[in-house]
């Protein structure tokens, strides 16, 4: 748990992991530089599909970042003793993943060199503009919260800080969802359900990431998670996954019901090729049904890697879901003349196609690499490993084995 | 920890020294004024304030639609473009020569045309 206790071999492994993560990050930065220099002509994005793979990565990281803070919030805001020892790790992951997501989205800008302009010119009517305020605010509030939590002198104040962080993260994810929800003319977006859907998605994705990281850290330190805690967390994850599924169903059912949206739904759910496959195979099967099965089958979930596998399924499903939502939503033609058969030199009335290029993928992976490296370093240098005193926990919270 | 400190000090030293070394070695920009005559302001003022003049003008023209201002990028080019290359960029180019020397990034020419007398093709299908 402490730096001094690590064996030589273990140290070597740690540095190798950090080096690998750093390399992936560096390659991502190189890819961004290449894109910046050549222009977006080297990407698969175009004037119809304007947001591509980097946005899938970035939005996953940003949404999961706010969700991963949930573990801390349950401890601080809802007073569940079991979650409090996990709050520092949850806060660290939130900061790191948000930073990584922002890195990807910033480096994908056409003029990434104008970051200062983005900071100094502010349009109050832009949802993006609101997010430019929400992101730094998240860093500040979560940073403050971590300080209250980890500095014994400041400990009395951690609850209000936790509440502030909880509220802020709800607003932040509302802002992220509203980037899409406020788009008036797009068939796939323009819906008020998107912001709450993003919030519940963030709960599921964030918890899945948290479970994986926690599992890795326990494994690294030859510890086993208390089965009671494990059961609690896996039930929570299952609930979140089911809730996301509920929102996704409502979103698609309303669309199917509206005649003006049926063509779009037919594209996503039936005729969209890779998009349809990703929806049913990626999101529904791997991202929802499989995790629910693994988490709730009485013979399976207690097995060592079941919860891990479920978490990985949730994350794979999340990427598929975002791909369907972001890319699929743009592949479907904009309805400029609703009742007409339309054709033009610019994909009007046609389903577009998108093949992401290597630099885009590498940039996205660079974000994952950054999150991984920063977490590894942070966890090792500071005391982020959940250090529960199980007996104390049991007396504080009698219904652990529910 | 001490290693980190040493590395930081070393890095800081490089940062501080590098510009000094560069200044010592870089040749002064050699500017040739291709069209001698009256600029819109004395050379000293232009050197110091051309960026402010252009920035204010650009915002007024772009956002308010005010045309015919005193400072204008296209007017700069028409006087200062090299007679051999036709441009304010390139080796010895009026803009680039100084900006390379001062290591200030030129952001204008990603969008603006740096060549003087670049033929404007006019409206296709209509003779002008």
């Amino acid at each position, binding site marked *: 748990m402490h730096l001094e206790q690590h064996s030589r071999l273990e140290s070597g492994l740690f540095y190798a992991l950090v080096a690998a993560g750093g390399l992936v990050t560096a390659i991502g930065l190189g890819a961004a530089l290449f894109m910046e220099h050549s222009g977006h002509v080297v990407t698969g994005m175009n004037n119809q599909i304007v947001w591509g793979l980097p946005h899938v990565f970035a939005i996953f990281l940003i949404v999961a970042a706010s969700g991963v803070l949930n573990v801390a919030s349950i401890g601080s805001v809802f007073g569940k003793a079991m979650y409090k020892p996990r709050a520092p790790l949850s806060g660290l992951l939130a900061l790191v993943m948000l930073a990584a997501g922002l890195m990807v989205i910033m480096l994908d800008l*056409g*003029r990434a060199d104008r970051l200062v302009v983005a900071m100094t010119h502010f349009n109050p009517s832009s949802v*993006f503009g609101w997010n430019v305020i929400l992101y730094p605010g998240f860093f500040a509030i979560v940073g403050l919260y971590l300080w209250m939590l980890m500095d014994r002198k400041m400990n009395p104040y951690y609850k209000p800080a936790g509440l502030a962080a909880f509220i802020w993260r709800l607003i932040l994810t509302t802002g992220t969802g509203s980037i899409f929800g406020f788009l008036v003319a*797009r068939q796939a977006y323009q819906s008020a359900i998107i912001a709450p859907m993003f919030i519940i998605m963030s709960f599921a994705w964030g918890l899945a990431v948290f479970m994986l990281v926690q599992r890795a850290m326990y494994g690294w330190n030859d510890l086993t998670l208390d089965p009671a805690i494990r059961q609690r967390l896996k039930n929570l994850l299952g609930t979140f996954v089911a809730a996301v599924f509920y929102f996704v169903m409502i979103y698609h059912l309303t669309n199917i019901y509206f005649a003006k949206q049926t063509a779009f739904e037919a594209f996503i759910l039936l005729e969209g090729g890779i998009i349809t496959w990703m929806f049913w195979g990626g999101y529904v099967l791997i991202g929802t049904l499989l995790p629910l099965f693994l988490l709730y089958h009485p013979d399976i979930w207690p097995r060592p890697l079941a919860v891990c596998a479920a978490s990985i399924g949730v994350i794979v499903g999340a990427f598929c879901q975002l791909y369907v939502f972001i890319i699929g939503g743009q592949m479907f033609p904009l309805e400029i003349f609703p009742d007409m058969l339309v054709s033009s030199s*610019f994909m009007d009335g046609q389903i577009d196609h998108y093949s992401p290029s290597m630099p885009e993928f590498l940039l996205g992976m660079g974000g994952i690499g950054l999150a991984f490296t920063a977490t590894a370093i942070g966890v090792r240098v500071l005391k982020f490993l959940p250090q529960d005193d199980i007996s104390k926990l049991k007396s504080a919270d009698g219904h652990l084995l529910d | 920890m001490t290693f980190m400190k040493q590395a930081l000090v070393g890095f800081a030293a490089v940062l501080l020294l590098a510009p000094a070394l560069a200044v010592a070695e870089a040749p002064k920009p050699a500017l040739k004024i291709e069209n001698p005559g009256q600029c819109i302001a004395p050379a000293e003022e232009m050197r110091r304030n051309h960026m402010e003049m252009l920035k204010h003008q650009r915002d007024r023209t772009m956002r308010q639609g005010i045309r015919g201002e005193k400072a204008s990028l296209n007017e700069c080019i028409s006087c200062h473009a090299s007679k051999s290359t036709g441009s304010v960029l390139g080796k010895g180019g009026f803009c680039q020569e100084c900006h390379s020397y001062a290591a200030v990034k030129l952001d204008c020419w990603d969008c603006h045309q740096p060549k003087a007398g670049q033929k404007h093709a006019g409206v*296709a299908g209509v003779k002008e």
Partner: protein
Amino acid sequence: MNDPQDRIDNQSRRSFVGTAAAVGAGLGVAALAPGLHLIEVSQAGTARSPGEAASNTVRWGMLIDTTKCASGCDACVKACNTENGINETIKDARQGSQWIRKIELKDPKNGREHSLPMMCQHCANPPCVDVCPTGASMKRADGIVLVDRHICIGCRYCMMACPYKARSFVHQPLTEQNPEVPRGIGCVESCTFCVHRVDKGQMPACVEACPEGAMTFGDLNDPASAIAQRLAREPSTQVRADLKLNLGVRYQGI
């Protein structure tokens, strides 16, 4: 407001267009066009004097008569590309800039076909301006919607928001710009109503190039302008009128 030079310019423009229209009529092209042309140009042909800002008493607009717009004709697209220096080659056409494009429509109920040019509709309530994080997407006082490339960061949110797919993102470095029309890598761009020409009292390039005289440009706020008079007399539609964006571009015949 008008200095003598401007008036002379307008005079010469008028006589030029008159001649051109007469030639057009002589060739049997668009019998109705000549007279209308003459009025339109005199309306739009007022240059602002140097130092004068665009005013909100003016609202520039365009009326497109799709019954005159020929399927397969892309004179307006070519004129736009020439005027605005859109001359770069790019492998994937979807990555290239299209400030104006021709759309072919067919009504599946009755088989009726239309052809029309689609470009930035210069909304009074432009979604692109609402969503732009930096304020680079902007509407000038006289209703022309523009991108201030000096502060555009290339996020493409405006392209997501535009209901007309009217905006393009420059995907590669450019070198052959028209000096009057700066455009470059990493920024979003769209039809400017040829703002550099309009400010000089000229017509947008597409309007001038249309061989059928199907496009009318002018001040929607001036009841005496040709466009305002035709809009008062004749039926016209706004595309996706349900969005209530109050468009500067109006269509007839669809």
